[in-house]
């Protein structure tokens, strides 16, 4: 009756969330809770998602389409990375509200899931298990970026 022992089936949307490295370790119930906190946004091709220097408040997960990350380099712009479905960006905004250090723009019409920092912080307090799983995934992601940087490999800038 209460669905207490029933594991919820994964909808196509939850499956897409599960494919992301950030949420890969979450159980179906935990994924459903996180999904309840996420916002859906649709961007047109060439639309700016956020600007360099803007205060970061949320992490973005690419559900469909592609986005391009670039930053000011001399007089022009330098492309840092191109991300497709399953990738996420703006992850440092989950940790603090420091300014974004690159601009992100939609390359195609794309659909993004947005995870707001305050919701993440609330989740850490009310549901520490989900919080630590996401934090661990985030820490691994940042560590990989650090290793790439140390070995001189091209890497996605921390946003």
């Amino acid at each position, binding site marked *: *009756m209460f669905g207490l022992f029933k594991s919820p089936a994964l909808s196509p949307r939850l499956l897409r969330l599960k494919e992301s490295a950030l949420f890969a370790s979450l159980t179906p119930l935990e994924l459903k809770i996180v999904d309840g906190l996420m916002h859906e946004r649709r961007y047109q091709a060439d639309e700016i*998602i956020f600007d360099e220097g803007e205060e*970061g408040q949320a992490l973005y997960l690419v559900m469909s389409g592609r986005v391009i990350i670039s930053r000011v380099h001399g007089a022009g712009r330098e492309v840092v990375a191109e991300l497709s479905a399953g990738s996420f960006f703006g992850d440092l905004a989950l940790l603090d509200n420091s300014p974004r250090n690159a601009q992100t723009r939609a390359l195609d019409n794309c659909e993004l899931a947005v995870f707001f920092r305050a919701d993440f912080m609330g989740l850490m307090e009310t549901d520490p298990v989900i919080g630590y799983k996401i934090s661990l995934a985030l820490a691994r992601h940042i560590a990989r970026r650090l290793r790439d940087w140390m070995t001189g490999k091209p890497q996605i800038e921390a946003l």
Partner: protein
Amino acid sequence: MNLLPTQQRGGPVVWSGIIAATCLLLFLLQHTLFLAVPFLLGIVLYYILQPPMQRLTRMGFSQNAAIMLVGSVFVLLVALAILAAIFWNSTPTTSWQDKLGIYLAGGLEFVRGTLVSLEEQFPLLRQVQLADTVNQRMSEFTGAYIQSHLTDILVSMAAWLPSLLLAPFLTFFFLRDGLRFKKFLARAVPNAFFERTLCLLHEVDQTAHRYFRGLIRLTILDTAVLAFGLWAIGVSSPLMLGLIAAVLAWVPYVGSIVGCMLVVMVASTDAPADPSVAYLAIGVFICVRLLDDFVFMPLTLGRSLHIHPLITVLMIFIGGSVAGVAGLMLVLPLLGVVMVIGETLGRLITDPRLRARHRNAMQLRARQASQDLST
């Protein structure tokens, strides 16, 4: 946690708008009080029941089941508290009406006794026949006014009952659809303003949350301290009196005066021959109010709204004159919410980059929508 960007606070134009909007809302509120009061109760219940409901949801309960379970437990606890209060009553033979009459008579007798002793102390007061004049006025009030208006008061109180029954329904829907409503609101916001609007919604929610949580904590503290003080000087039903006085204190100034009168009435009835008990009760009440204003309030409500004390006091007066008792009671939470909305909107509207991004997004949408129209 304050998530709003902190680089600048609203200027005089924004603040004038905030105060004007608060006054307008108070004016509207006065005319929709039958809806505003259950709405407010619904919000208070929502903030009380939300944490256990969320805990149950995370344990795997469906949302509706969690709300029903938490609601049932809450109703059960309230029913148990009422039953306990009824059975705890030391003199069950007297009805509530009789008891009210006894306390009223006790309070009046205390006032008469005080006036007579004042006349004995100060002959000038005897010359102006202070005690006789006040006695006559009070007799007129209790005899004529209360008798002629008692039915009206009771009928208007009964008319409030159906609207108060709205509160649990509102709470249920706040608990069930609160998050969905937040997402629904956020969906209506253009992409360029989205992140800042999320901050705004979060901050409004946090402001209301902090205020009502602070109010509940303040009520518990006030009840405990006043009950202890009244118990120490030997007044009957100290816990019940403390709770009633603490709830009445939700209405600034007026509530405290009514609470004090109530305490004096009970104290003077308990010891009719010894007015010092009533004087001690007044002393305890004033001490608790001072403690409340200078210690408890800054610790609970004061931190919750981050409003300058001068504006707080001014707005309480404005609230009282615009919307009476309801205005006194609601002006601060309303101001807190309007302040957050006003300051954020001020920042959004005056940010040229965000507006330019929004215009660009509109052009992109228009271009894409009209792509195949011309051959």
